[in-house]
């Protein structure tokens, strides 16, 4: 039995050291809610205390209630029979206990009975849920669709849907993917037609819909006849009725507790969210960015679970008359895993904070339109940063998380490959994180613009201005080199002035950006704590040669893969 918050020194470190003033100020707006809402905080310290108490309860539930059910949920999975989906018993119980603890509508405003939680704290919660049961995170995380209704829906829609989400009375789904529209959502074909009475109706099939059996779904559909691209798509709110059938659920490698449905709409009535034609370009992008941040937290949680299993096993297992933990090959792996976790967590919170500030500023602008001109520049800055950091965090955490799970099995040896130990489950669950909500390759496409535009360098300037790195001269020298390598690589490619070079090196550039940003962020943590300084030192010492090798390859102007790949692949 353990509390997944209290037993995690790294989350506690961040909670204790994170300056949340700006976020709380934006989120709570002079604590006006406290006049009308009994559970609203009175000041900054009270807000922090509320966050901490919430995290302790979430830690208790995830560690002591959800985690013990996860193995059985994985074994039984969600099931499909006669057109209906049933969650595993453990999944149902977990949802019920979270509902009773008021943890199903965490980020919604208090006006709609939510907890008004910033994404930064929400990310910590999602990590803990995922550490306990990765598949449950999908269901809990999908409550996020309520955020999209909150942002773009009418007052009437918000009043009808949001309190039900906050109370956990309804569960959500986002129905985007179709058989021929996966990464390329512009190809969505599902048809939405408006009858003369003004009502909208859906016809067509969606595939790979996580929790497609949900009570309320956001459905991306083609509302504009004779269009073929993203500008003909709108987003609709659909409340489950008999006019939608679940055709089947997928049999998947992992996250068995989360049903992945193929659903068919047969003239199913729905309602338009926001404005027509903005479905993909605005609303789905917003929806997916929230979901991507969720996956960055999910992959971290799964990796945390796998790491702990690996460490425990390495301490118990004796070979050649000593604990395998004491073999260099094993402790280096564990050290890399642990540093990978802490780098992922730092990047997750940095990203969450950026998103919180962006959303907080947007809310403020909506509330006080007269301040628009004061807020505009800052909103633009944080929108760009969120657009860069969200895909970076998603790509990084999912890839590192997969590596950590892979190594966790390796440390277990043969038994890690059996179902008697939970690392195989973690590895299976983890495998989806670098695929769904946009593959790593798609995240790189989303991030590369911010890397080549110099946005990363602007952020690094801020880190340098806000922190006194002179206390760590050696480390700072390494940070400078990482930064220079990235900037040299970017300018080298930009000089070639062709898209192919950017496309070919996008992954390498993204990795170089991640090495740099992570080294800075870990070093900033190192200013607060000697242990964190050691983490920054080791991370940076490994990042440097990796960064150099990429710079070398980029500078070599070797494009032989582009030229020769066809002959090699098709041999």
């Amino acid at each position, binding site marked *: 039995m353990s509390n997944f918050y209290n037993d995690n020194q790294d989350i506690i470190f961040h909670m204790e050291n994170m300056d949340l003033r700006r976020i709380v100020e934006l989120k709570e707006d002079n604590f006006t809610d406290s*006049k*009308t*809402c*009994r*559970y*609203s*905080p009175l000041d900054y310290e009270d807000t922090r*205390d*509320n966050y901490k*108490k*919430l995290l302790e*309860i979430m830690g*208790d*539930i995830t560690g002591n*209630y959800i985690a013990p059910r996860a193995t059985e949920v994985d074994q039984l999975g969600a099931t499909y029979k006669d057109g209906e989906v049933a969650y595993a018993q453990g999944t149902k119980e977990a949802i019920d*206990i979270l509902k*009773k*603890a*008021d*943890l199903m509508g965490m980020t919604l405003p208090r006006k709609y009975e939510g*907890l008004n939680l910033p994404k930064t704290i929400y990310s910590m919660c999602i990590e803990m849920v995922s550490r306990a049961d990765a598949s449950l995170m999908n269901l809990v995380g999908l409550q996020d669709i309520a955020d999209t209704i909150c942002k773009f829906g009418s007052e009437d829609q918000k009043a009808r849907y949001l309190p039900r989400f906050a109370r956990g009375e309804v569960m959500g789904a986002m129905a985007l993917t179709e058989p021929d529209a996966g990464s390329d959502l512009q190809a969505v074909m599902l048809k939405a037609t408006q009858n003369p009475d003004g009502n909208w109706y859906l016809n067509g099939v969606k595939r790979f819909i996580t929790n497609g059996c949900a009570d309320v779904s956001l459905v991306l559909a083609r509302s504009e006849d004779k269009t073929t691209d993203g500008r003909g798509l709108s987003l609709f709110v659909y409340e489950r009725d008999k006019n939608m059938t679940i055709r089947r659920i997928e049999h998947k490698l992992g996250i068995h507790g989360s049903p992945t449905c193929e659903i068919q709409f047969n003239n199913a009535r729905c309602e338009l969210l926001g404005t027509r034609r903005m479905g993909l370009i605005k609303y789905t992008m917003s929806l997916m960015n929230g979901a991507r941040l969720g996956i960055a937290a999910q992959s971290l949680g799964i990796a945390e679970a796998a790491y702990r299993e690996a460490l425990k096993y390495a301490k118990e297992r004796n070979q050649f008359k000593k604990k395998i933990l004491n073999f260099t090959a094993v402790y280096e792996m564990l050290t890399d895993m642990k540093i990978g976790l802490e780098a992922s967590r730092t990047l997750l919170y940095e990203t969450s904070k950026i998103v919180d500030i962006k959303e907080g500023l947007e809310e403020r602008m909506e509330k006080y339109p007269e301040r628009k001109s004061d807020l505009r520049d800052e909103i633009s800055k944080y929108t760009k940063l969120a657009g860069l950091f969200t895909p970076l965090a998603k790509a990084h955490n999912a890839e590192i998380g997969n590596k950590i799970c892979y190594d966790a099995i390796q440390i277990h040896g043969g038994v890690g490959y059996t179902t008697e130990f939970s690392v195989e489950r973690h590895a299976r669950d983890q495998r989806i994180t670098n695929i769904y909500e946009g593959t790593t390759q798609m995240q790189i496409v989303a991030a590369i613009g911010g890397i080549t535009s110099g946005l990363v360098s602007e952020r690094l300037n801020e880190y340098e201005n806000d922190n006194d790195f002179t206390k760590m001269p050696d480390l700072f020298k390494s940070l400078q080199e990482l930064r220079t390598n990235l900037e040299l690589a970017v300018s080298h490619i930009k000089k070639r002035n062709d898209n192919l070079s950017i496309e070919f090196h996008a992954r390498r550039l993204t990795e170089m950006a991640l090495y740099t940003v992570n080294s800075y962020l870990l070093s900033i943590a190192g200013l607060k704590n000697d242990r964190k300084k050691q983490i920054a030192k080791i991370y940076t010492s490994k990042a440097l040669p990796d960064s150099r090798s990429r710079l070398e390859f980029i500078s070599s102007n070797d494009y032989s893969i582009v030229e020769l790949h066809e002959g090699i692949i098709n041999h």
Partner: protein
Amino acid sequence: MGALNIIVTVKQVPDTHNISVDAMKEDGTVNRALLPTIFNPEDLNALEEALKVKDQLGGKITVITMGPPKAIEVLKDSLYRGADEAILISDRKFAGADTLATSYSLKCAIEKLGKYDIIFCGRQAIDGDTAQVGPQIAEKLKINQITNIINVEEVTHESITLRRQTEYGQEIVKSRFPVLITVTAEANEPRFPSVKRVMMFKNITKKETEESYDETYLKIDTDRSKKYITEWSADSIGADSIKIGLAGSPTKVKHIEKVVLTANSKNMQDIPNTEVGICALINELKNEHIFG
């Protein structure tokens, strides 16, 4: 049909799962100051059953504890989990109470509360393990009692049907209200605190009151300062001073023995992992009456 009035009695106990070496004083008594305290586990089960009845039929849950001021912690925890009102019975005069004095004090408080339909108690507390307080309260109130409950089969506005564990099996028993029920750990897995309620009540304080129980003044209001945990003294519940505390406790501790269990290494023997070896072990355990 009036809303159900449900009372739950709870107790703050030393956490016997986390006992350190210093838990016992030289004289063999428990060093309470050194032990972390927790919500008595089966009282949480009792509260959960009360909450389930409320989820289904509505009503009001009042939680009562008798203990030192620190016992307010279990009352706060009860409010976090969904209880509506909380009452602390606290007075130096209650000190040293055994089960008889405790049940008398609780009975006085319950009578002061007035109307009630169901009283839920945990079967027993992990510090004393007597399982006497619940039944004694029922006897003193002269109401029905059903003990050792493992499941609530059915509950309506007039009666409750319960499954109870006995030494020989299980029984299904139905009772009209009012009734006192003692609940076992098997009955349920208690819910966790509600985050909203924690945020609402975390700074709640207690207020001594000699007044009679006044619902309007305890009504939850948007003004947080108006919600208190009520504190009642021995006098305010009209308890007879010779029936409470040490004076009202016939149980006297004559002698405390520290029992240290150690394995006698002379009797240690290896049992071969064969059919013969294991059968011999089973026979020996049977002969020693360790196995039935």
